[in-house]
């Protein structure tokens, strides 16, 4: 194992190299661009053996990746925001076709107005496609997850595509020391891709043909079952990875100092690293606070949410985007699990950091203060969903 200083994008490229991706159709978009560039370099330096297909769009990137997978090759691609949105149709196709393409998405805001900064709308909008979703908070996690995601996605019981999320710039362009695992160890962990069914001229079959309503529903139920089965596999793969590297990402959810916590903040991405730091400080002050970081969005970690629900007084859900007309997406997801739960905790939604706005330690502390207050006294004037830090005065000035 070697420690190297890597940006999130470089870590992504190394992950694809170590996973021995065989076909990589990709199209550049800020802030994903350096992934594509780095992969082109790795191939031309002879360090990586893969077919790099320089497609003319993300839609084609995903379509070529699916076809490559159907042919029996390990396929990888990367994109961001508008690119992911353009892939939408083919993400659904990849899931229905049961092709385990791994896609890294650099989370970026959707225009207009144009913005290239961190925001989670791109990935949240793909929740229903049938793609497994991993979320990362640092560059080590990105590299490790590319390898782990292939293992999960390609499992014969699963065979679904996977999306790996990393925050624009906070990770994509920020260097951190990253352990680069040995190829030989990765090879032991991740066997070559060898799907049971593939395009084969000696055993011709059709893939994705027309079905009638009675069969379609059966196919969908099988997808649903595989997605549900992925939970246990993700936990198992996380444990295996920990045995090999000493690194675990919490299986289905990353819980930080949650065991005896009364107040929890739940959210995704880099702002949760900041939040963990603040929790350390607040713990020293005797506050019973903890962080639950989203690791897997699909399949949703419902057992983990219910585990927390049995223990804590309140969960504040931080959303770095919004589902217009229906609250933050993670807030919806968490609340959906708590309905039907006996004695559910109090929940409140904090919409924060949208479009790359900084989320700094003071904000996290304010959210915990607010959460304790509203749990005691009920939602104030702001109600259940608070867009934190708007210029309209709805957030106390000293907390902005």
């Amino acid at each position, binding site marked *: 194992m070697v420690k190297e200083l890597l940006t999130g994008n470089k870590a992504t490229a190394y992950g694809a190299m170590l996973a021995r991706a065989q076909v990589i159709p990709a199209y550049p978009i800020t802030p994903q661009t350096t992934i594509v560039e780095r992969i082109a370099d790795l191939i031309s330096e002879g360090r990586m053996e893969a077919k790099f297909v320089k*497609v003319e769009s993300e*839609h084609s990137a995903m379509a070529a990746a699916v076809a*490559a997978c159907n042919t*029996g090759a390990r396929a990888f691609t990367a994109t961001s925001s508008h690119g992911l949105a353009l892939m939408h149709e083919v993400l659904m196709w990849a899931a229905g076709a049961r092709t385990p393409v791994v896609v890294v998405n650099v989370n970026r805001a959707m225009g207009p107005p144009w913005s290239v900064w961190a925001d989670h709308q791109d990935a949240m909008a793909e929740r229903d496609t049938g793609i497994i979703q991993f979320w990362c908070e640092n560059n080590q996690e990105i590299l490790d997850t590319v390898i782990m995601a292939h293992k999960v996605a390609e499992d014969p019981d699963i065979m679904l595509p996977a999306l790996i999320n990393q925050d624009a710039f906070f990770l994509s362009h920020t260097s951190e020391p990253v352990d680069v695992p040995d190829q030989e160890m990765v090879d032991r962990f991740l066997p070559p891709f060898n799907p049971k069914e593939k395009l084969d001229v000696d055993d011709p079959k059709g893939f994705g043909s027309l079905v009638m309503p009675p069969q379609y529903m059966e196919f969908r139920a099988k997808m649903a079952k595989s997605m549900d089965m992925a939970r246990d596999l993700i936990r198992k793969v996380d444990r295996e990875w920990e045995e090999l590297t000493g690194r675990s990402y919490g299986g289905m959810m990353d819980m930080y100092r949650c065991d005896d916590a009364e107040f929890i903040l739940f959210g995704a991405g880099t702002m949760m690293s900041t939040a963990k730091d603040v929790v350390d400080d607040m713990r020293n002050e005797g506050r019973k606070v903890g962080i639950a970081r989203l690791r897997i969005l699909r399949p949703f970690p419902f057992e983990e949410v219910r585990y927390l629900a049995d223990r804590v007084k309140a969960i504040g859900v931080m959303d770095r985007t919004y589902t217009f007309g229906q609250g933050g997406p993670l807030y919806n997801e968490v609340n959906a699990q708590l309905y039907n739960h006996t004695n559910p905790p109090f929940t409140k939604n904090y919409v924060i950091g949208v479009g790359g706005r900084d989320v700094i330690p003071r904000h996290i502390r304010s959210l915990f203060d607010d959460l304790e207050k509203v749990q005691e006294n009920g939602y104030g004037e702001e109600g259940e969903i608070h867009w934190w830090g708007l210029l309209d005065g709805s957030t106390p000035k000293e907390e902005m």
Partner: protein
Amino acid sequence: MMAKLTIPEEELMSPGHMGCLGCGATQAMRYVLKAAGKRTILSIPACCWAVMPGVWPNTCLQVPELYTPFETTGASISGIRAALDALGQEDINVIGFAGDGGTADIGIQALSGTADREDDVLYIMYDNEAYMNTGIQRSGSTPLGTWTTTTPVGVKGDWEKSPKKNVTAIMAAHGIPYIATATTGYPEDLIRKVKKALSIKGTKFIQIFSPCPTGWKMDPALTVSITKEALSTRAFNLFEIENGVYRITMKPKKTPLKEYLMKQGRFRHMPDDLIAKVEAGLDTAYENLLHLEEFTQKKAGSSQ
């Protein structure tokens, strides 16, 4: 003594497809597969041919077939070829088989990408001059004056207002090594062109004029003979472009366009002045083709 067979005997398309009576597109597939043989992988987007092989788990095709979203045929065959290369599998034909809508309109971007990268694949556009699978709507390949459900005759005469899109010219602009047109009424010519295409490395493109009795409002019995009239009226021309050099592969004696049009309900509303306009356009296009042939052949000859 038996006559020598001009068409390969091998059948890779079984009877029992779901196409309409007299469907030219089914003939196109049958002949393409005869030319390509067993070691072929097909990619098929949304189009009549996405339905014609049959309902899962049945298929009338005896080569591996991959269905792909409507606009992705180019990307899909590029992905298959890249995977075959990565896996070290050689001597396999990769063929995209798409309709005119999936090619001239929604899929042209992906196709352009494939051609630009010079990926080693054959792209077949079976051309029935409209979106038939969705019930006869106009496509870029629909000829001037045509009735379709989105170009109704009505009271205002809202028939198709622009001539057929010149897809071979678009492909020629990509500088790919082989482009051809063919039609189902001339299977030997079609098979020869497919075989030739598959013997060449790089991106190849063949447009196959494929009558559609259902969408053309035409007697299915005419599905073969109508192609002959399409050629003699210049409604469709047979040629190939090999490394930029044009060769017209059939130069039939000209017959009046009106006779061709009146056999098809989709044209029967056309007033004489419109027919004259269409005919003039087709004649000019044919003349241009003759000039291109002469010019490119001369140039190729003089550079040798």
